[in-house]
């Protein structure tokens, strides 16, 4: 087993009126782990993700990040702990240049000089140096996703939470993103919510499958993919 537990949820539940989106989830993430969360539509992955990032306040249960209960914390406080967050729909500063976007993230927790060098470094890592002065809303979808990834990594987080980082990307872009995520994993623990099974195969180490708001199974990709229950959940019942 790898290092200490960095993210833990205990009996985490999220109710929307009468709908139970997340139902008593106990989840652990250890240091330097790369964990993928998968599951069919409406399984509660994104809701779970939003509870972790402070965008939703859980109805019951606790979210603990490095021994700190962050149940009632705001997103900016969670980010302040050194957590990098990428949302499902790309959230970028549309009217600003690529480098301004990344500078804003880098400058938040670093002094001016360090932030400048971090911007250079990050632009290089996400391969956007050539278009650093372009305004973000004129870029392609994949490039905007990278701008957002760049914002996440430029703050030098130790924990990275990504919601569908490869959504809407071309095949080549997906390959680069997978590479980037493995690289991030050298210095940070990661939770990646993803739909795309191919993409998960490229990066996954251990996979957690969500179904109807609860964890169905948690194991390596090969075991999960072979599991009859998972197949049933993904493909629906096939009774003869």
């Amino acid at each position, binding site marked *: 087993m790898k290092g200490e537990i960095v993210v833990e949820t205990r009996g985490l539940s999220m109710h929307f009126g009468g709908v139970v989106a997340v139902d008593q989830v106990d989840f652990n993430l250890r240091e330097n782990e790369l964990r993928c969360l998968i599951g069919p539509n409406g399984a509660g992955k994104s809701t779970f993700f939003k509870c972790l*990032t402070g*965008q939703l306040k859980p109805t019951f249960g606790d979210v603990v990040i490095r021994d700190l209960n962050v149940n009632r914390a*705001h*997103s*900016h406080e969670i*980010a*302040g702990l050194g957590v990098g*967050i990428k*949302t499902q729909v790309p*959230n*970028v*500063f*549309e*009217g*600003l240049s690529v480098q*301004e976007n990344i*500078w*804003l*993230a880098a*400058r*938040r*927790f670093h002094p*001016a000089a360090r932030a400048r060098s971090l911007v250079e470094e990050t632009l290089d890592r996400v391969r956007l140096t050539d278009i650093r002065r372009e305004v973000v809303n004129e870029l392609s979808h994949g490039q905007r996703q990278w701008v*957002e990834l760049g*914002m996440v990594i430029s*703050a030098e987080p130790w924990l990275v939470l990504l919601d569908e980082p490869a959504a809407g990307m071309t095949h080549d872009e997906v390959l680069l993103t997978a590479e980037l995520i493995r690289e991030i994993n050298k210095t940070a623990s990661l939770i990646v919510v993803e739909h795309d099974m191919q993409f998960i195969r490229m990066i996954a180490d251990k996979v957690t499958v969500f179904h109807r708001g609860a964890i169905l199974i948690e194991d390596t990709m090969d075991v999960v993919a072979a599991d009859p229950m998972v197949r049933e959940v993904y493909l629906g019942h096939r009774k003869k």
Partner: protein
Amino acid sequence: MNHARENSWLILIGIVGAIFLIGAPQVLELFTIINLTTAIAMALLALSLGLVWGFGGILCFGQSTFFGIGAYAYVVAAINFGGTSWAVVVAILVAAAFAAVLGYFMFYGRVSDVYLGVITLTVSLIFYNLMRRTSGPEYKIGDALLGGFNGINAPPLNVPGDASWILFPEDVFYVAMAALIIGYFGCVWLVRSHFGRVAVAIRENELRAELIGYDVRLQKLILFAVGGGIAGAAGVLFANGVGRVTPDVFNLYNAALIIIWVIVGGRGTLIGPILGAFGLFYLISSLGQQTSINNNLVLGVILVVFVLLVPKGIVPSVIDLWDRKRGRRGQFRRHGRRQRRRGGRTAETSHEG
């Protein structure tokens, strides 16, 4: 717009401002100078909304609240203190503090943009109605009678520290123009600072700003308070220009006018609102001298025309136009140079061959 070009514009603006500051009292009549002081107060007010709305994305429909509070606070403090030196400071601080309190409830209560507009406008109208009802002798703060509908006479500025040395209207003009220049360059500095760049980021995407670790509520609160303070300073100048403060500073007409200045001048620039305020101020005062067309009708038409045809406002549109022309001309010039060079080379090779 890149920084180098922006800097050359700033130098130009600074020079024009300084010439205006020194030159205007030499060539203009006293009446015009006094009138100009009021126009400058309006320009400073427009600047404050240009900062809060154009850069922070906070559509405050009641910027007149802080303007009026600044004006009243200045007059009341000046009467009570027997001098204006501290009254100016008090006015700016009271206006900023009120903006901070109001902002606290709106930003920490996560009031949405539309309701923010409604709330700020309502607060201004509440002050309007409140101050109109303060006409009896029982309504006074210290020695200052609030005077209800008629308002209070504003004591003119004095030299700091010497209450008996009262400034002449020309001198008040110098103070006002200097305040506008300082306010403008102060805002330029602010929007270029880390704080200002974060304010713009929040305007662009609040959630993202939060996710990279900025406390959006606090950032907005501070910007709003700074805008309130500048509006308060504008109120002080206004009280000096007009010589009297009445509840009309809070009325709906003024509240709407500020928005129109900023829309016409251009959001997202700082010089735009200032020019918008000057332009419309003089347009309205020249229209005031005739009776064939209704003032408000003209204002309404201007607003509609701008919203429909020049939605970005004058200054950003001029910049765009300039860029496009320049860009195209530059492209042709570069293309031409390349063609000539290529032409020369082929001529040379053929000559050798």
